[in-house]
């Protein structure tokens, strides 16, 4: 088992290298020179050249790449052109809200979606099933920002139950955290609940037709255990896959949700960095997001082997 984890972790290294290379080249080949943008409209060509030299942009491409890789290996993502703060610091400051929002969203969605999907599969064709299906289609088709504003309108402006925006750290003010995180979580979770419910339903429905379900019933097992002990565990691999893909989707969704609810997370940082053409920050963020994605993929692969003893790499 541990050998597998090590092997799997080692196999992500080449992927990460390729990602770093692509990010590097993408920005280098994008039209526009960061030095020109930094120097501003009135700059002379000497000023621009000086800035280019400070940023190391006058060096040959491969030297730039190796310098940058050297920095990366030391955990240095460079310095923001706009704020002059190290990118690692910027990301570090914004990491908590995004991580917390992602975690609450996943937790909330899985807790709602999996039982809902199992129930729908169990009563396939019945009214619960139809209701769940309609609900998940609606969840799919609502854009995140529309749902966000609708929820704010109802629960914050109309009923005045919850604040319209902001973020409190759960480590500082737990009640405030709950009040601020609820609407973003629901907003971000809607599409996710829809996705996970559908896949849970489909996957459990398929498993319920299997012979070992009949065996479990023949033993005298009750329906709840048949569903959750026998069916769900067998249906878990596709569900875990979708949850993993969903985490990647969440990152995209977080950008919009954090903007709507004014949460100072990575999503907001992305938007700000892009608006300001802050290349080191964009570069750093893309890397962080890619690495997260690779990491999640690895965790899912490891989860497969726990969920299904037949899967061995």
């Amino acid at each position, binding site marked *: 088992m541990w050998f597998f984890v090590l*092997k799997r972790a080692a196999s992500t290294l080449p992927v990460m290298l390729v990602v770093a290379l692509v990010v590097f080249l993408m920005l280098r080949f994008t039209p526009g020179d960061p030095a020109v943008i930094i120097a501003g409209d009135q700059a002379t060509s000497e000023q621009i050249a000086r800035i280019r030299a400070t940023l190391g942009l006058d060096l040959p491409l491969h030297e730039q790449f190796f310098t940058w890789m050297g920095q990366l290996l030391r955990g240095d993502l460079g310095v923001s052109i706009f704020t002059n703060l190290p990118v690692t610091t910027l990301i570090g400051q914004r990491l908590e809200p995004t991580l917390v929002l992602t975690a609450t969203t996943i937790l909330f969605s899985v807790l709602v979606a999996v039982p809902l999907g199992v129930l729908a599969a169990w009563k396939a064709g019945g009214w619960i099933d139809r209701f769940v299906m309609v609900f998940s289609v609606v969840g799919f088709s609502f854009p995140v920002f529309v749902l966000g504003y609708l929820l704010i309108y109802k629960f914050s402006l109309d009923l005045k139950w919850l604040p319209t925006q902001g973020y409190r750290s759960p480590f500082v003010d737990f009640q405030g955290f709950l009040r601020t995180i609820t609407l973003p979580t629901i907003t971000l979770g809607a599409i996710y609940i829809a996705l996970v419910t559908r896949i849970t339903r489909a996957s459990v429905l398929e498993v319920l037709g*299997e*012979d*070992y379900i*009949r*065996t*479990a*019933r*023949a*033993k*005298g*097992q*009750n329906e709840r255990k048949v569903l959750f002990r*026998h069916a769900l*565990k*067998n249906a878990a691999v596709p569900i875990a896959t979708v949850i993993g893909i969903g985490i990647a989707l969440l990152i995209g969704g977080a950008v919009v949700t954090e903007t709507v609810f004014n949460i100072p997370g990575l999503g907001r940082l992305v938007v700000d960095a892009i608006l300001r053409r802050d290349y080191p920050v964009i570069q750093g963020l893309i890397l962080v997001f890619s690495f997260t994605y690779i990491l999640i993929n690895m965790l899912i692969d490891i989860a497969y082997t726990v*969920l*299904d*003893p*037949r899967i061995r*790499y």
Partner: protein
Amino acid sequence: MNTTSAASPVLSVENLTVRLPAGGDRANAVTGLSLTVSPGEIVCVVGESGSGKSVTAHSVMGLLPKGQLTASEGRILLQGEDVLAASPARLRDLRGTRMAMIFQEPMTALNPVLTVGDQIDEVLRIHTPMDAAARRERVLGIMGAVRLPDPERMIDAYPHQLSGGQRQRIMIAQALVLDPALLIADEPTTALDVTTQAQILKLIAEMQARQNTGVLFITHDFGVVAEIADRVVVMQHGRVVEQGDRETVLRAPREAYTKMLIASVPGITPPERKPILGAVALETKNLSKTYGGGGVFSGKTRIVKAAVDVDLTVRRGETLGVVGESGSGKSTVARCIARLIEPSGGEIRIRGVDVAKMPERELRKHRRHVQIVFQDPYRSLNPRRTVGQSIMEGPMNFGTSKADALARARDLMGLVGLQPDSLDRYPHQFSGGQRQRICIARALAMEPEVLIADEAVSALDVSVQAQVLKLLDDVRRRFDLAVLFITHDLRVAAQICDRIMVMQNGSVVEEGATRAVFAAPKHPYTKALFEAAPGRDFGSQLTGDAAPDLG
């Protein structure tokens, strides 16, 4: 096995009727069925597919699919208690404690993500207040009783780590751990190899004798009936055709249907056959196939030798049987010859040309000479294409005009005993036997010289099997085909093969004229295979009879 009659029955089914959903091909799955099982008695319910035997078994367990099948009339008394009237909770209490069931497919009947020990233990957790240590003791005990090797180690194994026979033993352990009064076995040995089948049948008989368990044994196989039954119930179209003790039903059946079924069972003694001296159509030399041993990254070092130095020849007009259990490499050989998989070494000569290593481009024109009929007629025809399209596709790929291909397809449909007009129908509109006929027509459309039948009759009911065997024999004669007949069934091999070749672990262990090998098997494995064949005495009753004429 003892025939008790004095004791009150464990199971008494009275006038059971199970309704089918509206729009089926008949109103009831089971009509007016009555039978009893006494303690210590094995009652075999035998019938072909669709006869209602499994529905009967599932009705007793209360496991009929909800909303589709409902027992509308009659009573099912388990030790006097009507299970049809029992509440769902009461029914759950009875399952596992007073009645238990084992199923056909040990591969799929066990939950793949739970350990086998856990699955046996589950029965104890549901029905007893025993603590963990006592339960473990009991699980180990029953695993020992069903003769599983090293229960201490196996208790933590997952189903996929066990062989088919071991899994079926786990199923039996799970069913019998609480000593139920009634055991229902639904085709429990059908998916197993013949030697494993013999062991499992012996085990069931042994286990039921231990606690005087009543057994309702569902099967389609008269060999198994002859081996294990005390009494026999013959079913057709949801009704009981005939019931009585084993000797009476098997030796002196009253009803025409029973007689037909029994006559369809191929005898295990091969008829006299003249040696075939036609030209050699297919020849292999040192044919080998090795799996595994992949690259450095796969980390797999396990090498499986699926076929090792297989030499065979098949002459035109001859049927060579390849006999063996699962994993013996017989299908691998067939697939290599058809070049569906790449052989690792050796020669495959078809009409004298070695195709073993031929690149795909050149191979194409040779492909038509070798055609295959597969085991499962439900999956080997494309459900989205009409049977006509399926039959005509091959010849048209080789340049036959559509009109010619259609004419040939119509001829072939007639030849295999189907309506030429039904070419524009889809596979699901045909029965299993009809589909297998279509598969044969599809193969013949290519005008092959070598026809490979890979377990081509194994999925069919006996009466249909006899017809398809006869058809295969007909087309062999008519087209002077070299037939490579892959089978695990010795009875079938006895009836159709001129020569047979016995395979074990990828190697040929014995080869010779069918009659000679059956009369005096030399290799220990061949002997073991023959000894394991169920109901050999019963089968021998058929010797001397010509193959049943049912076509």
